[in-house]
């Protein structure tokens, strides 16, 4: 009797040890950042093949949408800047432009993909930005004639611009859009459990075995996570941070997140993280809508989140204090909380 009990316990232990299914992980450098794909519960061959399909698709997208190297977008910018019309018969690019118009307008142009010229003035149209602050005169001039997506006119397949400053820069959109394309590739190839991370823009598909995928949210000033959160299937999460692309000049940090209203890098936040429920463009929204919440003035952030329908957000403000939505606050698990930090719940 006792012997049987012992056997039973042993068997339970051995069974529980042997049931771990593997996660296959692949990394590549695309979009100027790390792309990391994890696939759960599939064979190594299949995981590798599908990851390569996704990497190749991302490389194609990157070349196609690149804001400053030779691409369809840079040819378009060149033509529009010299006052010419530009013909596109590519349905996808017309869809992308249309979607950017809608998202920019919804975000009150805090997400403004039409100001590529300003981003370039700040030196962020190179892989390693120069540490030059443009003259305030130049910035003032630009802001006085700020280009928006409304300056781009679409007549069937012909594009024209009514503002010489107009320059499309999809740097705040492309990674999210790529996530939505990855979701389709995974579905077509019957992968039901995967986690795709493009430089911090992440989408979860299915689960990690019997638990949800868990994402660590980067601490904006430390090389570790400030919190972690479960990302249910189909959800996306995105962060805009002043630590991602920036330069220091005279001990001031100048990040790539430029406030269209001032022409200067936004300096009221260190990072803004948002989580978007399953939708056709969930990846896109998680990339695009973290910008308005990062850039908008402190007192406007919560209101803007409500307007954009973002129920899950967490913003680390410039002083290190945190503004978090009540739903995010219920789901988040703090890993590093400092006692002087003030956490305001929206």
């Amino acid at each position, binding site marked *: *009797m*006792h*012997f049987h*009990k*012992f056997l039973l*316990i*042993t068997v339970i*232990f051995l069974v*529980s*040890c042997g049931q*771990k299914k593997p*996660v296959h992980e692949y*990394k*590549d*450098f695309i979009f*100027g*950042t*790390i792309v*990391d794909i*994890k696939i759960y519960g599939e064979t190594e061959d299949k995981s590798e093949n599908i990851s390569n399909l996704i990497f190749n698709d991302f490389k194609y997208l990157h070349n196609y949408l690149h804001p400053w190297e030779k691409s369809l977008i840079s040819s378009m910018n060149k033509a529009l800047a010299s006052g010419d019309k530009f013909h596109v018969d590519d349905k996808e690019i017309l869809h992308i432009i249309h979607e950017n118009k809608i998202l920019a307008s919804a975000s009150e142009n805090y997400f403004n993909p039409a100001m590529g010229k300003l981003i370039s003035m700040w030196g962020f149209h190179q*892989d*390693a930005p120069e540490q030059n602050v443009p003259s305030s005169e130049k910035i003032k001039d630009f802001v006085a004639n700020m280009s928006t997506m409304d300056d781009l006119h679409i007549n069937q397949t012909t594009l024209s611009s009514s503002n010489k400053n107009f320059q499309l820069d999809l740097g705040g959109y492309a990674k999210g859009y790529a996530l939505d394309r990855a979701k389709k590739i995974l579905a077509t190839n019957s992968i039901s459990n995967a*986690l795709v*991370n493009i*430089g*911090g823009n*992440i989408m979860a598909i299915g689960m*990690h075995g019997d638990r949800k*995928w*868990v*994402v*660590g*949210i*980067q601490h904006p000033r430390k*090389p*570790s*996570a400030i919190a*972690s959160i479960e990302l249910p299937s189909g959800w996306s*999460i*995105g*962060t805009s*941070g002043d630590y*991602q692309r920036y*330069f220091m000049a005279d001990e001031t940090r100048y990040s790539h997140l430029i406030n269209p209203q001032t022409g200067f890098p936004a300096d009221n936040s260190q990072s803004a*993280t948002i989580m978007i429920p399953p939708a056709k463009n969930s990846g896109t929204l998680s990339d695009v809508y973290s910008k308005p919440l990062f850039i908008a003035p402190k007192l406007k952030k919560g209101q803007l989140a409500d307007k954009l329908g973002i129920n899950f957000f967490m913003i680390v403000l410039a002083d290190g204090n945190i503004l978090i939505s009540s739903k995010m606050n219920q789901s988040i698990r703090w*890993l590093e909380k400092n006692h002087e930090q003030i956490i305001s719940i929206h």
Partner: protein
Amino acid sequence: MSKLFQFIKIIRLGDAFIIISFLAIIFWAISRSWNMPSGQYLKIESNYEDPIIFSLNQSANKNISGFLGSSVISINEGKARFVKSPCTKKYCIHHGWIDKVNQTIVCLPNQITISIVGNSESYDTVNY
């Protein structure tokens, strides 16, 4: 075999309980250390080399090839950092040491990441 049954006959319920618990603890300890080696490791990933995992219990410099050239990563008794890199801004070097599980330093220009891995990974990926 009959000796084993004789032994089972003479032991009391309490004895059996102690023996079983003791064996259970041993099994638990073995299975734990089998699946997840204790301690922490440094994982170095580059697009130009296969991922490598080093024990953190050493003092050594490692040369790793990246997109621009060779970076040097120093491991020193439980912690690690970049000490040389061909990138222009050297943000990877300025990061300094990392020593906790899941801490990561990424050198984007040279396409090398170093991260501490161990037995208490509390998330699958990082929203950096």
